[in-house]
C-alpha cells in the first residue's frame, strides 16, 4: 500500500511536507505500487462508491450554503481549473490561460466539445453567466466576496473568455478551482438561482464525470457515470451520497459495509482502527484552528500579552492528547499544507510558561499571593472563552487552553453555544472576549479578508499597519517568489504581534474501504474533483 501518503504521527516537523511530496511522486512513478492487473480489474468492475452527507444537498455551487451540498457539487459541476495533489491549479474546463503583464486581465481558452449532461454544448456563454451570477448580490450567490476583484467577464469567442479585474488578484486561479463550478446558462437564465428549485433539488445539469439520476429526499443522491465526460472515462459506475447526519451512525455504517468513505473526528478513531477492510488515511487541510482574542478589549490590546498567552499553551499536548496526533504544530495563520508559502524556517511557538509570565509582568500583570494575575489596580486577569457546542475535539481543546492559562494565573470561563448563535450573536458583532474557532480557506495564502484592518471577516479587530500593507501586496503580487517573501514576512510579523492564538493545523482523517484506489491524497473536498479516477477493486 505504498501508493498512499501516510503521514508520520505528530513530532518532528521540518521538511515533512517535502518528504511526503517526494513519497507521493515516487509512488505515482511506480504505478502506485499496485499490480497493474488489479487496477485494470477495478476499471472493468465499475461498482458503486458510497459517501455520507450530513444534509440534503442543494445542487448549485454558487448558492450552496453547506458541506452537504459542496461535496456532490464537486462531481457534477467542474470549474475552469482544478487543484492537483500539490493544490496547484491545473486545467479542467479551461485548456489554458494567459494573464496579462499588468495582472488586470486573464484570458481562458475553453476545452472544445464539452457537453452538458443534457447534451447541450458548453461554451463561454456559460462561464460568463456563472460569474455574472456570482457577482450579483440578488442571485443568492455565496461566492461573491471570493471574486469581488473581478470587474467583468467578456466573451471573446465561443471558446475564449476574458476576466477583467479592478486590481491584480493573485488568488484568482486557486479560487477558480475551489468552489466556482460552472452553471448551464441555457437552463438557469432569467430567474434568480435560488428559485430554480427543480434544478437545485432534483435535476441538476453539469459537465462533470457523474450525473444525478435519482434524489431520495432525506435519504440519498445517486449519480451515474457520464458517458460523454470530456476527461478520461470515469471508472466507477455510480457514486451514491447517503444522508447520514450522525457521525456515530456513519462509522457504524462504514463498519457494516454500507459506506465506503467517511471523514472522522479524532474521537471516532478507535472505532475504525483495526477494522478489516477499512484503511485510515490522513491529509493536512487548509484550516487553522485558533483562539481569537478580541483585540478591542483593553486586556488584549498589547501584542506582548497575546504573545505571552500563546506561549502559555501547551500545543504539543493538545495535538497528542486531543487530536491523537492528527494535526500539525502551528507557526502563524498560514497552514503547513500551503508548502510554497508556509514559513517552515520559523521555529514553532514555544511552550514557555515562565517566559510568558515575564512578558505579562512587562505588560503590567503580576502574580498575587493567590497565584492569580492582577493588573496595577488589583483586577484579576479573567476572560470568557466561547466555543460551539457538541464537537468533542474543540471542547477538549478549550478545556486544555483553560487549564494551561489557569496555570499562569489567568482565569478562563468556558461557554458553549450553538455555532450559529456563536457566530451571529457574538463573533460578528464583536461582543466576545475570546472564541475558539477556525477558518477553512481556499488553498492560497491570501488572508486579507481575515486579518486586514477593517475587513468584514476580521472578527478579532486586529490591526497592524505593516501587516495591512503585506496582505494588500500579497494578493496583488502574481510573481510566486516575491509572493513567498511577502507571506514569510507576514508570518514573521505574526510571531511578534499574533492576530490570533493558532492552536493547530488539523489533518483530515479519512476512513475508507481498502478496495478504493485512485483516491488522491487531498482533503475530501478537493479529492472529489478527481472522481473520474476513483475505482473499486474487486474483493
Amino acid at each position, binding site marked *: 500500500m505504498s501508493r498512499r501518503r501516510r503521514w508520520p504521527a505528530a513530532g518532528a516537523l521540518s521538511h515533512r511536507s517535502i518528504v511526503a511530496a517526494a513519497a507521493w511522486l515516487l509512488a505515482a512513478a511506480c504505478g502506485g505500487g499496485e499490480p497493474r492487473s488489479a487496477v485494470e480489474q477495478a476499471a472493468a468492475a465499475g461498482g*458503486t462508491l*458510497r459517501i455520507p452527507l450530513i*444534509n*440534503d444537498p*442543494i445542487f448549485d455551487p454558487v448558492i450552496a*450554503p453547506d458541506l452537504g451540498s459542496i461535496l456532490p457539487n464537486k462531481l457534477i459541476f467542474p470549474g475552469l481549473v482544478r487543484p492537483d495533489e500539490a493544490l496547484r491549479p491545473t486545467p479542467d474546463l479551461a485548456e489554458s490561460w494567459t494573464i496579462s503583464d499588468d495582472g488586470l486581465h486573464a484570458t481562458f481558452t475553453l476545452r472544445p466539445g464539452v457537453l452538458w449532461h443534457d447534451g447541450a454544448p458548453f461554451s463561454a456563454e456559460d462561464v460568463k453567466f456563472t460569474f455574472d451570477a456570482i457577482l450579483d*448580490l*440578488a442571485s*443568492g*450567490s*455565496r461566492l*461573491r*466576496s471570493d471574486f469581488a476583484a473581478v470587474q467583468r467577464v467578456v466573451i471573446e469567442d465561443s471558446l475564449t473568455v476574458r476576466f477583467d479585474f479592478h486590481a491584480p488578484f493573485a488568488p484568482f486561479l486557486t479560487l477558480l478551482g475551489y468552489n466556482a463550478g460552472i452553471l448551464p446558462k441555457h437552463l438557469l437564465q432569467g430567474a*434568480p438561482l*435560488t*428559485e430554480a*428549485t427543480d434544478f*437545485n*433539488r432534483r435535476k441538476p445539469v453539469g459537465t462533470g464525470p457523474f450525473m444525478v439520476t*435519482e434524489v*431520495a*429526499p*432525506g*435519504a*440519498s443522491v*445517486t449519480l451515474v457515470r457520464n458517458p460523454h465526460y470530456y476527461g478520461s472515462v470515469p471508472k466507477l459506475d*455510480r457514486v*451514491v451520497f*447517503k*444522508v*447520514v*447526519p*450522525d457521525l*456515530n*451512525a456513519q462509522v*457504524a*455504517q462504514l*463498519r*457494516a*459495509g*454500507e459506506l465506503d468513505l467517511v471523514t472522522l473526528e479524532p474521537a471516532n478513531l478507535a472505532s475504525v482502527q483495526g477494522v478489516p477492510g477499512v484503511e485510515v488515511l490522513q491529509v493536512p487541510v487548509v484550516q487553522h484552528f485558533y483562539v481569537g482574542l478580541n483585540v478591542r478589549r483593553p486586556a488584549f490590546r498589547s501584542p506582548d500579552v497575546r504573545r505571552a498567552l500563546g506561549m502559555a499553551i501547551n500545543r504539543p499536548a493538545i495535538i497528542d492528547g486531543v487530536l491523537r496526533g492528527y494535526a500539525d504544530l502551528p507557526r502563524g495563520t498560514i497552514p503547513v499544507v500551503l508548502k510554497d508559502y508556509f514559513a517552515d524556517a520559523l521555529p514553532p511557538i514555544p511552550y514557555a510558561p515562565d517566559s510568558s509570565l515575564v512578558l505579562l509582568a512587562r505588560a503590567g500583570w503580576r502574580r498575587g499571593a493567590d497565584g492569580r494575575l492582577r493588573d496595577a489596580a488589583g483586577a484579576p486577569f479573567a476572560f470568557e472563552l466561547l466555543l460551539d457546542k457538541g464537537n468533542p475535539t474543540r471542547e477538549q481543546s478549550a478545556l486544555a487552553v483553560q487549564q494551561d492559562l489557569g496555570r499562569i494565573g489567568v482565569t478562563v470561563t468556558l461557554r458553549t*453555544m*450553538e*455555532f*450559529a*448563535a*456563536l*457566530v*451571529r*450573536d457574538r*463573533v*460578528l458583532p464583536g461582543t466576545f472576549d475570546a472564541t475558539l*474557532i477556525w*477558518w477553512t480557506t481556499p488553498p492560497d495564502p491570501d488572508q486579507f*479578508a481575515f486579518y486586514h484592518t477593517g475587513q*468584514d*471577516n476580521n*472578527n478579532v479587530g486586529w490591526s497592524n499597519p505593516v501587516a495591512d500593507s503585506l496582505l494588500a501586496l500579497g494578493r496583488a503580487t502574481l510573481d510566486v517568489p516575491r509572493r513567498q517573501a511577502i507571506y514569510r514576512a507576514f508570518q514573521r510579523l505574526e510571531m511578534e504581534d499574533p492576530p490570533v492564538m493558532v492552536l493547530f493545523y488539523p489533518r483530515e482523517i479519512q476512513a475508507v474501504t481498502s478496495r478504493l484506489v485512485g483516491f488522491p491524497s487531498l482533503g475530501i473536498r478537493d479529492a472529489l474533483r478527481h472522481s473520474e479516477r476513483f475505482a473499486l477493486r474487486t474483493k
Partner: protein
Amino acid sequence: MAGFLLRRLGHALLVLLVVCTVTFGIVHAAPGGPSLLADPKLSIADRAAIEQRLGIDRPILVQYGRWLARLARGDLGNSFLYQTSTVSTIMERLPNTLLLAGAALLLTVAVAVPVAAWCAERPGGLLDRLAGALALGAISVPVFWLGILAILAFAVYAHILPAGGASDVGGSDSIVDRLRHLVLPALVLAAAGTAELFRYTRASALAQRARPFVRTARAKGVPERGVRWRHAMRNACIPVVTVIGLQLPRLVGGAAITETVFSWPGMGRLGIEAALARDYPLIMGITLLVSVGVLLASFLVDLAYVALDPRLRPRA
C-alpha cells in the same frame, strides 16, 4: 353530536392559533437566527442581501402577519434550507415518518396489551417479573444509545439487518428490503412506548380485576376468556387509550432521535434540522402539522372513550 363536533373544531382552531403564535415568537427569539447567515465568511452586504431575500429584515409582527396571511391561502412559504415549498418538503418526508410511527405503534399495542393482560392475571409470576424488569430497562435507556447498540449488534457484528436508511440505494426496492430497513428503527422507537403502555395496562387491568362486576360476571358463569377480555380488559382499556393517544404525537415528533441514528428520511429529523438551522418556515410548517396531529389524536381518543364506555356518550 354535531354541536359537540363543531365545538371541538372551534377549540382546535384556537389551540392551533395559540401554538403558532407562541412557536413563531420562540423561534424568532432563539439566539443565532437562520444558519444561512451563520457563515462567518459572508460580507456585511452579502448578509443584508440574504436577509432581504428571506424577508427577515422586516419587524417580527409584519413577518407574522405575512405568514398568517399566506397560511390562510394554504401557502406555508419556502424553506430557507431547501429553498423549496415547505409543504412539499414536509410531504416528501411524511410517508416515511407515518410508516415508522405506524409500525412502532402497531408493535407497541400488539406486544404491550396482551402481555399486560397475561401479567395482570398472574402478578408476581415469572413472566410478570421478567416483563417488569425489561420495561424498566426500556424506559430508562436513552433512545440513541439503544439505537447504536442495536446497529452494532445486528448490522456491524451479525450482519443480518442494515445499519440505516429506509431502503437499499439503487438496489431492489422490494417490500422485503423496506421491511428489513424498518425492523431496527421500529423496534427501537417502540421500546419505550411499549414499556410505558405495558405498565399502564397492567396496572389498569389489575385494578379492574378486583372490581365487583368482574366477580359478578364470573358468578354468572361467564367463561374466563370472556371475563378477561369483555369485562375486565374493556374497562381497563379506557386509561390505556389515553396513553396510546399520548403516544401518537410522540411517535411523530419524538422519532427525531431514532430517525437520526438510523438515517431514516423522516419528518422528525427534518424538524431537528429545521430547528438547528432556524429555518423559520419549515419549523412553523412542521409544528403546525404535528399540532394538527395531536389534536386529531386527542379527538380520536375522545371518540374511542365513547365507543368503549356508553356512560360517556353525549346526551341528545
